[in-house]
């Protein structure tokens, strides 16, 4: 959870770290001893640029959604269905897809922008004028684990802080009774915690994983729910702690710990309200598809995401792991003619509901919505009716939070294999997300083990073309 955890020692560590100091000096805006009062939230502050987005909701489709069936129509592939790919594929040791496999689904133009969207996503299609469809995404890894790590942390193999951790480290939380970075996944995705790990950043910046929406945060309920008695105990505790502290006048960690108990007490009263989906109107529950078993699970995830960003949570990530498809539900190596429609049906209305709801509440302007997986899928066929992993050119979309709506960015070649125009690498996406939230990705730095680290390592360019 994100409750301003910098203590004095860490402040001093950071202060010695050159470039990072700038970020930190601006970040804090408060004295080290106040920051050391770890129960105090980081004051919401813009870091390097005026922020376009206050919060981010990342809709993660684990396994890799098939861009050629959803957002990147390829008439040439349909025309040559069953023929070999006429260009050379990269020499991957174990690539095993064969001939071109035209999409079984039709695309229609939508909205004023006329962007083509597959008939598998009829609800999202209605919001196409709010979407910026990036058709030229590239990633470096063809395995789920490496690619999912890269999409979430920038690094393919080793533990690094996740995107959400960096954002909360940079911007703090606007609500001190809720975690600043929340991950909602009904089942753990393959890699689990490393995807939302704070890694070497303090544990407070780790994503708080909510698996069961009915039990969102551990230990949030006082024994027997008796808050009055707990208050009495806390008063006694405070008296004892004050006496202990009086003999140790120079120890601000002790003071911080006293404050953390008070914050914990407040959280018990305030946090459950934020998670209470029953408080939503029936109309709104229907908007997210809560009344339909096919859309209920992801609908609840989306609705909770809105309630959280509304209350100042900085970063929310939803994993679509609630279906029978489990942790890699979008990994359609086979059975795509039934598997993909199933997943699309599961998320289409909930996502459209989220976009509509954010918009009608005026939250879309300040909330960046990102949709995608760790890679896409091959335009070629795997087995009888599947597609393989495809990091060479795939689609993601962004909406709200300063993003240019009704816009297509980049393109893949005629066969949907390589991204050929305006390529956007995962590092570029990260740089752009940080930029939209007011952070210069080159200046958000943390020193660990004697080295400066950033989310984008030595890479990343902000894609200004997709920003209004």
């Amino acid at each position, binding site marked *: 959870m994100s409750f301003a955890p910098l203590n004095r020692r*860490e402040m001093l560590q950071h202060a010695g770290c050159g470039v990072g100091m700038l970020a930190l000096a601006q970040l804090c805006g408060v004295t080290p001893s106040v920051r050391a009062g770890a129960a105090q939230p980081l004051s919401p502050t813009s870091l390097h640029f005026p922020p376009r987005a206050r919060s981010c909701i990342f809709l993660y489709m684990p396994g890799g959604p098939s861009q050629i069936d959803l957002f990147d129509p390829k008439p040439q592939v349909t025309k040559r269905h069953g023929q070999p790919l006429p260009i050379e594929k990269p020499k991957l040791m174990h690539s095993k897809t064969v001939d071109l496999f035209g999409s079984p689904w039709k695309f229609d133009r939508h909205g004023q922008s006329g962007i083509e969207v597959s008939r598998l996503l009829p609800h999202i299609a209605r919001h196409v004028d709010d979407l910026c469809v990036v058709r030229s995404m590239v990633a470096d890894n063809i395995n789920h684990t490496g690619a999912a790590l890269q999409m979430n942390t920038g690094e393919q193999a080793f*533990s690094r802080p996740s995107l959400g951790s960096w954002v909360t480290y940079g911007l703090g939380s606007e609500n001190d009774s809720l975690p600043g970075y929340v991950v909602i996944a009904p089942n753990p995705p393959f890699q689990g915690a490393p995807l939302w790990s704070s890694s070497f950043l*303090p*544990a407070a910046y780790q994503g708080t994983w909510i698996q069961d929406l009915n039990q969102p945060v*551990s230990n949030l309920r006082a024994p027997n729910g008796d808050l009055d008695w707990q208050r009495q105990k806390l008063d006694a505790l405070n008296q*004892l702690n004050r006496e202990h502290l009086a003999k140790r006048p120079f120890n601000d960690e002790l003071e911080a*710990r006293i404050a953390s108990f008070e914050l914990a007490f407040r959280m018990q009263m305030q946090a459950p309200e934020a998670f209470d989906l029953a408080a939503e109107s029936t109309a709104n529950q229907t908007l997210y598809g809560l009344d339909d078993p096919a859309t209920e699970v992801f609908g609840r995830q989306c609705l909770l995401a809105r309630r959280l960003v509304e209350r100042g949570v900085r970063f929310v990530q939803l994993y679509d792991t609630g279906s029978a498809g489990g942790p890699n539900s979008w990994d359609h190596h086979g059975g795509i003619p039934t598997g993909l429609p199933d997943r699309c049906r599961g998320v289409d209305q909930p996502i459209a509901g989220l976009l509509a709801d954010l918009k009608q509440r005026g939250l879309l302007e300040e909330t960046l919505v990102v949709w995608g997986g760790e890679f896409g899928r091959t335009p070629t066929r795997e087995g009888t009716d599947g597609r393989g992993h495809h990091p060479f050119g795939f689609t993601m979309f962004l909406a709200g939070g300063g993003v240019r709506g009704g816009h297509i960015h980049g393109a893949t070649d005629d066969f949907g294999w390589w991204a050929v125009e305006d390529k956007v690498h995962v590092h570029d996406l990260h740089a752009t997300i940080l930029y939209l939230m007011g952070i210069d990705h080159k200046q958000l730095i943390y020193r660990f083990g004697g080295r400066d680290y950033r989310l984008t390592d030595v890479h990343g360019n902000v894609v200004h073309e997709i920003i209004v």
Partner: protein
Amino acid sequence: MRRQAIILAVFVLGALGVCPLTASEQVANEAQHGWWAFQPLSDPSPPNVANDGRAPTEIDRFVLAKLELHGLSPAPPADRRVWLRRAKFALVGLPPTPGEMDAFLRDDQPDAYERVIDLWLSSPHFGEHWGRHWLDVVRYTDYLSPRADEAPEEGDVELFEAFRYRDWVVSAFNRDMPFNDFIIHQIAGDQLSAGGEGDVYAEGLIATTLLSIGVWDNGDADKEKIVSDIVDDQINVVGQAFLGLTLACARCHDHKFDPISIEDYYGLAGIFYSTRVLKSLGPVGLHTVAMRVPLVPQEYVQKRESQLARLAELEKLLKPSTEEATKTESTSNGKSEVSSSTPLPEQQRKQLEQEREQLQNDLLPAPSTALAVQDGATPGGLFPEIGDVPVHFAGRYDQLGPKIPRRLPTFFCGTDRAPIANGSGRMELAQWIASQGNPLTPRVIVNRVWQQLFSQGLVRTPNNFGLLGEKPSHPELLDWLARRFIERGWSLKQLIRIIMLSSAYQQASLAGAAADDHHDSYRLDPENRWLARFPSRRLHAEELRDSVLSVAGRLDSQLGGKATINLHQPRRSLYIQTVRSDRRNFSTLFDAADPGQCVGQRNVTTIAPQALFMLNDAFVIENAQHTAAKLAAEIPTDDSARIARAYVILFGRQPTQSEASIGRELLAAAAQRDPSTAWGEYIHVLLCSNEFCQLD
């Protein structure tokens, strides 16, 4: 010729937009040649100090010299109660019992401190406490995902045998295994001999688990990438843990700051590519599983295999006559040797049944296995034989450059060493790292020990002694300690002992009156670099949980074995599962190391969810009630005496008058609600207090 090839490759890759290499044969620059950590160990004499009455040991003279230089003076000695609590947590990670406290306070012999240190150095719980720090450094995890205790299945990627390594580390610390041996075991223990011909040196095999429990994707399609990541993980952990070097930075290009070239990296990579970790690459789309090595001699394995083969044969022969129902099945597969229509002659069947029974009795039990490594390459991999490997441009196995002989980094080892000709070369690597002449190894471990005792190292970047690391606060002291460490046979216990006997370790952390007299030290040295006071600290995650169990009298003292998933089991926290895939657990909440990182030093954070755990988690509440029950049994009637006893058990001291009266008030209020839980409620408050989790 080689240089030209590289330059050409750089040109081509540059044109392709691939991250180009910097100059290939990096010439170390002046800063690197002059860097303190790369110089041979010096042998400084303890300096003269103005007030040598305050520097009873040689360590203290080094410390006092710096204090005097900065206009500071050491704090007065800590109260004996405070020191005992500090020392027991430092050595075994547990609070002193009231009996231990009494005995120490009554012991007026001059060597009382020394005897207490020796007592706990020889405790079997010493290794549990100090081993945990080493496990942080080497990214140890019990499991990848939370597991109930279940048997491994074929193709299961879980690290079922990792606990053997953890137990070995604990035992090595307990035996005070010389640290140079400890290194060699972990890098090349599979090549150490047990003595007798054909005997298996299980300890050596288990120690190499260090190399196999790495952080690598055991995933699906691109198997070669996995192998190259395993190699990188091994180089990374060996570099950071033993040498304090970020060797893995040279995977894609020459190290930007330290004298390690990409050729040095691939010289080492050849060693690890020639080290087998995997059973096989595994089928595409399925997981890659680590190899298991049996901890028994080869003959045992062979004998068991032939027993199993014969048993299978007997089953087949006997099947038709014993199981009539399967007749058709066994004939239809066409392989049945005995047709169901011609049952075995009675005598023969009896004989075979006897043989089967005998064999079932004689069958050797399945051998224990370890996640050990062996010399040999990954079958079916890109480099399937022991041998040298080429540079991987930008770290990519599909962009190969010239072959680099297996060798050690040239800046440190020179260029005239013979390249490795036989085997992987891990033994050569291990021996160099563990050699007396290595300037890094002894400094790095001595610094880790100092850090564990003083909360910060003399060098505050414990895993990085390279040019981006911090310089030492007391370089002479570090070298002096490293020299003594080597002289005393690389003994960690001796090192800990001499540091704890220094007056620097015995001084007060400035609580109470001492704080008022000594507040200048905070102003002049807020970070406490010069040690004008003892650094107070928070208990680590494990210490906190173990203390809760310990004061309740419930801590299970059993050593070793598989880790449990159940936080409520009263085993030491070392045996509560660490997993990489789910970090919603107690130890993560309280800043334990991320088992996916080489963690040289833990963070210290204070967050509300920690308070929620202390306030509401059943673990704390139950143990508060257990503690209360224990107290009630010890002191059945007198409330004031019972409060005092609680303070002695929890904090090692008597309560003040006001503390006792706060206690009585709370007890009265609690008794009105429910007399049966009143004392538990009170103890719960004490467990939540700052004092319980803080060491002066």
